[in-house]
């Protein structure tokens, strides 16, 4: 497949669209004019992007949970509960894993079984199976804007249906919903399907309807150094902008060291704006999202609240535009609506208490500098590999390991680099693999890892990585040798 970063022509889009809508019977329910008309009834605080922009202006951090159950009525109940008892500012609808891999028939079966057994057997809301009208019923049952949250390599039909139904934000992207979310799908393929989603978004935009788009920041959620997720975010923002997207939220998953986390959010905003500007997209609005800790959680709920609070604190201190909330059930399973709302209230308390506060650490500048340098190095290498084309560059970058996501299941990912925490708990590069870093950056990371090795009296080694993966679940940030629970 030849992939290029250029706007789909109307003809290309139309042709592809026919195929997409035919992949499941609910595709028939989508009518663009009707969709535009419906979307236009949703204004002000009912629009995701508007609410984000207002928050950004006030330097407020909005809160949003993840949540989705298969059966429509139950899902509506869940959303209303989160509105009322979670005090959420933004609502999700988390899509089930069958839909995510386009197994609509399996989803149909799972939905049926869930109704039959009276309990959820799927991990999310199968929006495609429900179709446009049922999803509109959902939209009309709440007073809060809704976003589709998923992990779908080919999310074209899902976008068609949910946009037509009045969702005003859509998570995902061709890289961020490939590498962490599938095993064998080529990157060209997902970038292409996501060009479609972005073009669809652009089409709405051209018709006066702004839909917020959010590349998935945390990737595998496991020791992802900021520069890597930043590079993905920037590329996906550029790809989206090319198709006419105007409202983008770039994301980052809390790593655990406060200085690094605050620096990450600040640089994410700066870098994305810089690159969009540099490539001529001057009218794209950029906001940020911090995801509370995305790796393995402690099983104990009280400890989980501690992790949640520290994530919330980083969001609050960095003035991320929104924060994606975890629940005290995280380590065990999909939260009950009560547990989910608890995570929200805990987060809101922390966010509120930090609203007035700024984080002005002396080390912040160093951290910001290092993140920016490393991100730019990856971006420049990709651009070069793509001969000036971001889509091609992303593919070649991933292939060669210039853009390398740790622990990704996808075969396309090189998997050569290894991350680990340094002695202050910041995520660094233990082995750069083929990351295109300059000597300064490499030395910095190496020095940081050696500092830790000296402290722990063991060599810089993969054991550190394993210990770090377990660490937060066992009550600490850095995986020290011989650590016990708490």
């Amino acid at each position: 497949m030849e992939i290029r970063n250029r706007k789909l022509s109307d003809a290309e889009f139309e042709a592809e669209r026919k195929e997409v809508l035919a992949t499941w019977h609910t595709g028939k329910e989508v009518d663009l004019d009707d969709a535009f008309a419906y979307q236009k009834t949703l204004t002000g605080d009912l629009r995701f992007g508007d609410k984000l922009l207002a928050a950004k202006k006030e330097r407020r951090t909005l809160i949003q949970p993840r949540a989705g159950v298969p059966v429509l009525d139950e899902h509506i109940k869940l959303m209303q509960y989160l509105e009322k008892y979670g005090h959420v500012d933004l609502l999700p609808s988390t899509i089930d894993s069958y839909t995510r891999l386009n197994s609509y028939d399996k989803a149909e079966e799972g939905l049926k079984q869930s109704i039959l057994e009276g309990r959820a057997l799927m991990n999310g809301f199968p929006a495609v199976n429900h179709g446009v009208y049922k999803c509109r019923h959902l939209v009309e049952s709440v007073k809060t804007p809704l976003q589709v949250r998923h992990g779908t390599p080919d999310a074209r039909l899902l976008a068609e249906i949910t946009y037509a139904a009045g969702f005003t934000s859509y998570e995902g992207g061709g890289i961020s919903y490939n590498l962490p979310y599938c095993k064998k799908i080529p990157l060209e393929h997902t970038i292409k399907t996501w060009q479609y989603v972005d073009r669809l978004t652009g089409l709405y935009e051209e018709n006066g309807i702004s839909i917020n788009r959010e590349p998935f920041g945390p990737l595998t959620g496991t020791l992802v150094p900021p520069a890597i997720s930043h590079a993905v975010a920037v590329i996906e923002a550029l790809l989206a902008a090319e198709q006419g997207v105007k409202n983008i939220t770039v994301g980052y998953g809390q790593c655990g060291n406060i200085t690094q986390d605050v620096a990450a959010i600040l640089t994410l905003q700066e870098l994305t704006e810089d690159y969009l500007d540099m490539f001529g997209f001057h009218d794209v609005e950029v906001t940020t999202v911090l995801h509370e800790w995305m790796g393995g959680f402690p099983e104990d709920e009280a400890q989980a609240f501690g992790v949640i609070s520290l994530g919330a604190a980083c969001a609050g201190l960095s003035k991320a535009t929104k924060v994606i909330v975890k629940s005290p059930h995280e380590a065990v399973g999909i939260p009950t609506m009560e547990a989910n709302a608890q995570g929200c209230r805990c987060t809101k308390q922390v966010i509120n208490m930090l609203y007035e506060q700024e984080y002005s650490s002396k080390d912040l500048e160093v951290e910001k500098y290092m993140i920016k340098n490393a991100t730019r190095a990856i971006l420049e290498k990709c651009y070069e590999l793509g001969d000036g084309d971001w889509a091609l560059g992303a593919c070649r970058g991933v292939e060669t390991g210039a853009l390398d996501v740790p622990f990704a299941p996808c075969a396309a990912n090189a998997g050569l680099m290894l991350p680990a925490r340094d002695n202050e708990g910041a995520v660094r590069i233990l082995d750069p693999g083929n990351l295109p870093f300059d000597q300064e950056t490499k030395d910095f990371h190496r020095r940081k890892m050696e500092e830790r090795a000296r402290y722990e009296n063991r060599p810089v080694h993969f054991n550190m990585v394993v210990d770090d993966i377990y660490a937060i679940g066992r009550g600490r940030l850095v995986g020290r040798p011989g650590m016990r629970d708490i």
Partner: protein
Amino acid sequence: MKKKTIVIGVIGNDVHAVGNKIMYRAFTDAGFNVINLGVTVTQEEFISAAIESNADAILVSSLYGQGELDCRGMREKCEEAGIPNILLYVGGNIVIGKQDFEKVEQRYHDMGFDRAFPPGTDPQVDIDCLHKDLKMDE
């Protein structure tokens, strides 16, 4: 003693890769011959890999909650494929949500799994069980 062979992988549409990578390492370090099928593995793939490698056990991971749907009928498929007695383990976050684990275990036993493990089980526990069930220390 001959090395025991086990097949590991993550079933269904599940892409949680981290635990799988760590299990691969832990079992290899513990002296097993490990066939790792990675993520999004079908029942059929597990079974053919087990037959091909003449495996002693299949360790199914399911993290994403839909394991109950994905695992139904697996024992029957093993029987059909001619490995009716192969040791079958399942572990991870094998149901949706926080549920009473005894009931969950029962459900998986009823499906024909020899053992089911609760969330976050340390690889050492799995290794100990394998030693016991495969009579490795006798």
